[in-house]
């Protein structure tokens, strides 16, 4: 690579962010703007008997009021489970659900106006424990009327390949273990915020803190019954997502509706407590898992039964249900595999997609069990893993197509760097090493809404000023996708990065991109950006070849020059631009990406399909105080195969951020509820690791160079979280000889286990 691809590249929006100039949604203001006040349910499950709007209606500061029956069309990210309303219709399903809204002249007037709305409720039986949701209940007690068999089960996902239960019976070594995982939440720093502007030409502009402008666009159209061509969704700078801003949200529907109703700009910004109440985080999960091995440590079979606590609405839950099972197909070769996941509805805020979607908890389980089996058989846990890895260019039992695969090199790297062979099992009591591996999709091969379009399109524009503008719907949520767009254009056209700028995440001006979820952006948008700028280069070469009488295929673009190797052509970029635009002016070239057709033809075969997969292996070193139960994760050696690292600085950042988030789930984070009421909706009580908790990190990027990815790239944003948690769990075992089957691993749990053992 002669340009910026593969070189550590600071973000193009870095200066705006360090100077406070970057504009996030709440930073915008518009003339005559109103503010939203929300009425939220105090009940977990109750029928709405009456809403009295009279007092609020008389309030001079209140410009408009809205209730659920005014916009009752349901929505949801997945077209198979659009089970949510902008505001509750007939009943509420969790504490904090929005029941009514006002738009008022100031934030304070909006709060006061909302307080004047009086709602009468009739409580219904509450389902808080997912176990209760598995039982038959009264028709009137069902959380949603559409669930089957009179139970509150949203989805049962089940796949079985090659009778794993039979193979488990015959396996000389087998472990069956039960695991429990607390719910955790994204805790992005920027609270949800949205602004809606009803324009004079009867179009709607929505500026929102969203990872998925395209799906918000579609859902706004559905709920508001407004044609899609009259809606524009824009994502400005966004303060973190991690999956928590990847659904269309009720407050976005409400704000847009209030703007239509008042014909004025309307803003809604959440408090931190409201962000916690909104949740959409990782599902609380219980899991029974069996894994068998033969005498050599080769995995014979895996079978697991999983219950995930979905909360009140669907969100990504159907996908989460499948991911809990299908993403066990790597990084190990497991030919006899079975799983069943039941996602329950409960009267709590909904759960959805969070970094490492659906695969983080089962990854913990399988990696801990493999560690146990290695001990049972008497072989090194790293050796056991090396024996079982999938190869490159193979199909898994569920027909996931594995292309590049650097997992062996990942494990060899961290094994050597941590001096594993000399230290594992040999450290003093209270100190230990643990290993775990991981595997994740690099973009979902199938779009959420089936259609015949590509998954992304990028337009590259060349104009008289010599500048390339990249138009892409890709949503930079802090992962650096805007910078990748610029790097790719600069690489393909041999120009400095400052000749390239982006117009992004605006559904009116940028071609559709599906959004920042499933680790798809660098892979898919990268391919499309590469194609668009290659086409610009080809158009330029064609025009220059004709004018300068050289062969187009001999023309090179590098260092802001356009030349042939033999020296017959040697012109500056600007001269090339002038030649290319002669007689036609500015032009746009388009690139796109469509995943190849993949997968089997059985029901559920689409889940987990990706054009490429990332791999990783991590080793953690922990110090455990057996007297206090305190765990200190001191160092993590991380090796992640992201294919070609287009921006190593960003890749490292993703790996380090994954370590942070994995550490939080492993040792401290826990969404706690009592009677459906969240108990820790703030950063005092919901404990996220701070700088003092951060371990030393030794990050290795393993570049397996994938044939399908742009320049060989695969994902790095989510895969690196998977090995973090089990490597910590396994290290605790090495330190003090106990197996932690419940997350988070808090000191009380450690102490109980240590006491049990002694």
């Amino acid at each position, binding site marked *: 690579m002669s340009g910026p691809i593969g070189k550590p590249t*600071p973000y193009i929006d870095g200066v705006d962010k360090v100077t*406070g100039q970057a504009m996030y949604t*709440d930073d915008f203001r518009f003339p005559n703007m109103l503010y939203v006040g929300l009425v939220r349910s105090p009940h977990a499950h109750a029928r709405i008997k009456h809403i009295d709007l009279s007092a609020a209606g008389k309030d001079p500061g209140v410009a408009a009021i809205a209730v659920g029956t005014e916009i009752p069309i349901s929505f949801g990210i997945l077209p198979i489970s659009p089970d949510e309303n902008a505001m509750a219709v007939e009943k509420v399903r969790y504490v904090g659900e929005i029941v009514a809204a006002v738009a008022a002249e100031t934030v304070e007037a909006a709060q006061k106006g909302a307080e004047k709305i009086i709602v009468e409720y009739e409580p219904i039986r509450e389902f808080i424990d997912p176990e209760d949701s598995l039982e038959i209940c009264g028709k009137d007690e069902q959380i949603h009327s559409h669930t089957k068999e009179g139970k509150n089960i949203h989805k049962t996902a089940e796949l079985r390949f090659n009778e794993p239960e039979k193979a488990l019976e015959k396996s000389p070594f087998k472990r069956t273990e039960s695991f429990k995982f607390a719910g955790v939440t994204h805790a*992005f720093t920027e609270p949800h915020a949205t602004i809606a502007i009803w324009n004079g030409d009867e179009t709607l502009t929505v500026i929102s803190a969203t990872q998925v402008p395209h799906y918000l666009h579609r859902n706004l159209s559905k709920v508001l019954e407004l044609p899609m061509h009259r809606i524009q969704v824009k994502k400005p700078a966004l303060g973190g997502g991690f999956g928590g801003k990847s659904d269309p949200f009720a407050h976005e529907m409400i704000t847009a509706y209030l703007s239509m109703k008042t014909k004025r700009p309307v803003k809604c910004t959440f408090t931190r407590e409201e962000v916690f109440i909104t949740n959409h985080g990782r599902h609380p999960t219980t899991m029974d898992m069996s894994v068998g091995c033969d005498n050599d440590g080769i995995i014979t079979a895996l079978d697991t039964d999983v219950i995930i606590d979905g909360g009140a609405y669907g969100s990504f839950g159907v996908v989460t249900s499948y991911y809990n099972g299908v993403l066990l197909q790597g990084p190990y070769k497991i030919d006899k595999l079975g799983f069943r996941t039941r996602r329950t509805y409960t009267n709590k805020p909904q759960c959805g997609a969070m970094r490492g979607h659906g695969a983080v908890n089962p990854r913990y389980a399988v990696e801990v069990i493999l560690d146990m089996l290695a001990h049972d058989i008497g072989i090194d846990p790293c050796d056991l893993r090396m024996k079982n890895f999938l190869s490159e260019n193979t199909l898994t039992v569920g027909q996931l197509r594995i292309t590049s695969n650097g997992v062996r090199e990942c494990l060899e790297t961290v094994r050597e760097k941590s001096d594993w062979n000399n230290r594992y099992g040999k450290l003093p009591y209270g100190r230990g090493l643990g290993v775990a591996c991981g595997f994740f999709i690099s973009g979902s091969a199938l779009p959420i809404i089936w259609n015949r379009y590509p998954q992304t399109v990028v337009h590259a524009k060349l104009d008289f000023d010599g500048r390339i503008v990249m138009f892409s719907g890709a949503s930079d949520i*802090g992962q*650096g996708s805007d910078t990748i767009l610029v790097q790719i254009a600069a690489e393909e056209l041999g120009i400095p990065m400052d000749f390239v700028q982006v117009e992004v995440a605006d559904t009116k001006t940028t071609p559709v991109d599906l959004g920042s979820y499933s680790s798809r952006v660098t892979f898919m948008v990268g391919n499309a950006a590469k194609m668009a700028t290659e086409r610009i280069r080809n158009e330029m070469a064609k025009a220059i070849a004709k004018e300068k009488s050289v062969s187009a295929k001999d023309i090179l673009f590098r260092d802001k020059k356009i030349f042939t190797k033999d020296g017959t052509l040697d012109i500056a970029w600007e001269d090339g631009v002038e030649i290319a635009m002669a007689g036609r002016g500015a032009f746009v070239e388009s690139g796109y990406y469509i995943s190849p057709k993949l997968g089997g033809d059985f029901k559920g075969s689409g889940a987990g399909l990706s054009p490429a997969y990332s791999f990783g292996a991590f080793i953690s070193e922990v110090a455990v105080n057996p007297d206090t139960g305190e765990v200190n994760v001191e160092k993590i050696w991380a090796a992640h195969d992201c294919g070609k690292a287009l921006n190593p600085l960003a890749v490292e*950042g993703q790996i380090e951020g994954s370590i942070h988030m994995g550490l939080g789930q492993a040792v401290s984070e826990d969404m706690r509820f009592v009677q459906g009421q969240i108990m820790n909706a*703030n950063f005092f009580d919901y404990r996220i690791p701070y700088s003092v908790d*951060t371990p030393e990190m030794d990050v290795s990027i393993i570049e397996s160079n994938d044939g399908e990815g742009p320049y060989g790239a695969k994902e790095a944003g989510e895969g690196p979280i998977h090995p973090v948690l089990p490597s910590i769990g396994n290290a605790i075992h090495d330190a003090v000889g106990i197996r932690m089957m419940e997350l988070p691993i808090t000191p009380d749990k450690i102490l109980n286990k240590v006491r049990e053992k002694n």
Partner: protein
Amino acid sequence: MEKVQLNINGFTRIVLVDPHETILDTLRNRLFLTGTKKCCDEGTCGSCTMLIDSKPVLGCLTPTVRCVGKEIVTIEGISSGDDLHPVQKHLVKNGGMQCGFCTPGVVMTAIPYLEENPNPSVNDIKEGLSGNLCRCTGYKKIIEAVKDAAEELNT
């Protein structure tokens, strides 16, 4: 409402504020100085850190009326033109920010910290930034950036 005179980034501003209003809300909502971010609004995350009489203060816990007669410096008052403060420069260079939402608070914490602790170790910096929540970076590159900034400031 009370009429107050505030000295912000060396410039005098006169504003009408509620007696219980925080300086964070005054800056963001009345003066359109939105570089200071509101993340938790309850003193747990450090995103709204600013300098009041050269000391780092959480804007979400500080009533505006108590800022009268004091020198307030916000993120907007740190760099002038092209000249970024070394802390800002190294945060960009080292990738010490991703989404950027906590970043103004990190800058406003690190600058006075380095003035008092010109030669910090990695552990010192971790302590110094222990009130700033970052959900993206895992802190490593922030810590490295602050270390590099310290070195630059010392040369």
